[in-house]
């Protein structure tokens, strides 16, 4: 637990991705099985333990500490587990292994859990107490994605990341076979059906860059504003993965039911009504949920718009050129009207494509994708074969940084938000927004703020940089009054991107680049119409 506690401590404060990778890699190299496997599972969220609730922890505290002193301490520290870890009286007595801690949490009955946890706390040092409580509450908060954690495995000199990712969903903690494989042993045989395969990503482009390429070598298709998924149906096992390999099947039983085919498809997850693709806002109602209600399934039915096929009826198509994969898809039966193929666009020159992009037939289109006809399907983001050319920006994806309690009807709610953009490895606040969301979304945001507070300054809370919000605005000016040097006009939160990794929020440069761009001002009538409609709905909701 000592080494695990040190690791968590370092990871929690280390901003750099590479440094995080190094710390984790070294921990895994120096820690024996099965401890490293359980620790790894804790980091990737694959350790399913009996959840120790805040209520249980408070109960432990009430038995031992003066409530007034605890209250003052908790106010100062701001995090329950951390306060308990710090305030608890105990000296380190010997070493408690991570696996022993996991075993204890797995095998202790609910009634015995408080005493068992107190017993463990009594014999740990302070940083280990915190690590143990984080393990027990399942909330490590160290800003390390499962994918980044798996990247550390790939750095250990054994199998490549994509090989590990393909196998990942067939593995269970403490991953002894996986570590044996990494150490030079045999590849685990227990590969499950319907594995995730690394997704191929595109790089951004623009007209100037495109002019250097031959349009005849490329095809283009709409970029749909949903979330990119991999839908795998394999020998009766069906799984829906996000593009980082998280299994999101549970939230989309309708999509799972529609996957009446045998293969692994790459596509966009969208809400569909009568064939048409609904807005991202509609899809958003379905995201970030563990389960989904029947009314939601019928009001917001989800489906797929297919871009590509990795596997089809037992054949691995990834080594084939795009157009050959496409031919397979064009003659394929997906087994449901909720799944269809994303059509190709007809264009002869890049200017043709620019015209299409400027006036898309559907507001849910967020630009065009351009792909080389001969491109093979490779995981990762190779530069060259695939490009995305998004519609003209007038929104930014910002990271929620601070929240302030509102007044009047919003008393007690964290309703005024300060958001920021990346500048180097740091976030810079660029503006504030306090409307644009429904009452229900406000409650969700408030909950998020309370659960992710890292510091309080009177009525203001600083929140952990974990949530991306799409901010819509009318324009952006230079400003000497703002630290970021820019001021947005009329900013409002247009979408809450529960799905979007914080690292992918926009950079300050993106906003700065919009300063002189006339296209910022509502050049896209269709999209503007959607926004207007959305805003109107929200105002009704907020009323």
């Amino acid at each position, binding site marked *: 637990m000592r080494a695990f506690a040190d690791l968590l401590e370092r990871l929690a404060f280390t901003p750099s991705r590479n440094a995080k990778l190094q710390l984790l890699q070294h921990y895994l190299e120096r820690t024996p099985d099965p401890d490293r496997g359980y620790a790894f599972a804790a980091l990737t969220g694959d350790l399913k333990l009996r959840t120790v609730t805040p209520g249980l922890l408070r109960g432990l505290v009430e038995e031992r500490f003066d409530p007034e002193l605890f209250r003052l*301490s908790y106010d100062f520290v701001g995090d329950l587990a951390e306060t308990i870890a*710090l305030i608890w009286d105990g000296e380190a007595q010997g070493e408690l292994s991570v696996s022993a801690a996991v075993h204890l949490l797995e095998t202790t009955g609910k009634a015995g859990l408080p005493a068992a946890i107190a017993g463990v706390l009594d014999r740990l040092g302070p940083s280990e107490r915190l690590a143990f409580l984080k393990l027990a509450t399942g909330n490590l908060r160290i800003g390390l994605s499962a994918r980044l954690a798996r990247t550390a495995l790939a750095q250990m000199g054994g199998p490549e990341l994509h090989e590990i990712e393909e196998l990942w969903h067939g593995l269970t903690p403490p991953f002894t076979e996986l570590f044996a494989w990494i150490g030079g042993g045999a590849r685990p045989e227990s590969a499950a059906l319907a594995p995730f395969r690394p997704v191929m990503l595109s790089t951004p482009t623009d007209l100037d860059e495109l002019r250097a390429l031959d349009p005849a070598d490329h095809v283009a298709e709409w970029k749909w504003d949903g979330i990119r998924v991999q839908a795998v149906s394999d020998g009766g096992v069906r799984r829906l993965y996000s593009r980082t390999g998280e299994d999101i099947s549970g939230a989309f039983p309708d999509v799972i039911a529609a996957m009446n085919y045998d293969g692994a498809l790459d596509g966009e997850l969208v809400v569909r009504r009568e064939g048409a693709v609904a807005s991202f806002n509609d899809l958003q109602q379905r995201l970030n949920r563990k389960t989904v209600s029947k009314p939601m399934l019928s009001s917001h039915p989800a489906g797929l718009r297919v871009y590509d096929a990795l596997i089809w009826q037992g054949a691995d198509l990834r080594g084939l050129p795009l157009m050959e994969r496409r031919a397979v898809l064009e003659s394929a039966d997906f087994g449901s009207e909720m799944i269809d193929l994303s059509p190709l666009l007809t264009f002869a020159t890049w200017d043709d494509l620019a015209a299409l992009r400027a006036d898309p037939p559907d507001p849910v289109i967020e630009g065009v994708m351009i792909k080389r006809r001969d491109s093979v399907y490779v995981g990762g983001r190779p530069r060259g074969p695939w490009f995305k050319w998004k519609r003209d920006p007038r929104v930014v994806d910002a990271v929620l940084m601070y929240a302030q309690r509102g007044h009047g009807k919003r008393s007690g709610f964290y309703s005024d938000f300060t958001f920021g953009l990346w500048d180097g490895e740091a976030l810079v606040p660029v503006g504030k927004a306090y409307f644009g969301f429904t009452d229900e979304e406000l409650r969700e945001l408030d909950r998020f703020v309370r659960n992710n507070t890292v510091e309080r300054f009177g009525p203001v809370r600083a929140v952990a940089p974990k949530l991306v919000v799409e901010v819509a605005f009318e324009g952006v000016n230079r400003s000497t009054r703002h630290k970021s040097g820019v001021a947005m006009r009329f900013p409002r939160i247009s979408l809450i991107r529960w799905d979007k990794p914080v690292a992918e929020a926009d950079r300050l440069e993106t906003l700065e680049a919009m300063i002189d761009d006339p296209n910022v001002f509502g050049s896209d009538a269709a999209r503007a119409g959607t926004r207007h409609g959305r805003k109107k709905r929200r105002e009704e909701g907020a009323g």
Partner: protein
Amino acid sequence: MRADDFLHPTPAGLYCPQGDFFIDPVRPVPRALITHGHGDHARAGHGAVLATRQTLEIMAIRYGEGFAGTTQAAEGPVTIGGVGVSFHPAGHVLGSAQIRLAPEGGPVIVVSGDYCRTPNPVCAPWEPVPCDVFVTEATFGLPVFKHPDPAAETRRLLASMAEFPDRAHLVGAYALGKAQRVIALVRQAGHDGPIHLHGAVQRLTDYHVEQGIALGDLRPATVPKEIEGQLVIAPPSAFASPWVQRFRDPVISFASGWMAVRARARQRGVELPLVISDHVDWPQLTQTLTELRPDEVWVTHGAEEGLVRWCELNQLRARPLRLVGYEEDEE
């Protein structure tokens, strides 16, 4: 007469009417007794200053020789206007002292200043001084503050230097006391390579060396080629200044008792928080009060509420003085 009649808070600081002097005044006064050299306790511009020789020398380094009208080094007990005054080691920084007041016909009052009971290689250890009224700080006056063994924290620093040998490790440490203590701790932990100093910690570090404290190979942190991958000691304020730009990919560290709380470390943008404090932590605070068992505890600054609550629970008469002007961040 009540203890308040012999010592009470005023806007300028704690005032003793019988001796007509202030202790650690925050604005210029005719006569000041000063516990230690930190800027919020030791200010320039007083008429006469009584402090330990080292505190006077530190003040001269910080403010120049003419920092006060006259100075007197505290060497043995003196009487000022019928008040017996003596200085006793506080274990906080070099020269730091508790001030014992024994007014004629009044209670014995000990003003602790800032103090620390963890052994510190760069200053004399704290001594218990029996008293009727104990005037204490409460910088870390909450039970969450239990400072770990500074040697263990130092090992974490050295482990990080081994983990990231190409990255300079910049340890933020206040120029008086903490900087030299970190250096001494690093030496005790066996690191004997050069340690580079930010200009703002240079003079006070030199002074420690002059006082006979061995700190090893110290160099200015000026030559870019020489500081990559090295250990550098700097005042925490330097991290917000362009000075940091000379380092390619530094590990920013901060040695402070506040680093025990994650939100504080994050607020500072610290990558390697080191919990090394020159103040008493909660166990030391409460142990001190238990041992001294004064009739009254006065709490000058810090988390007064927590300590006063503890006194209440332990049948000790206590009250907060709510003195203003002392910075909790001078740590």
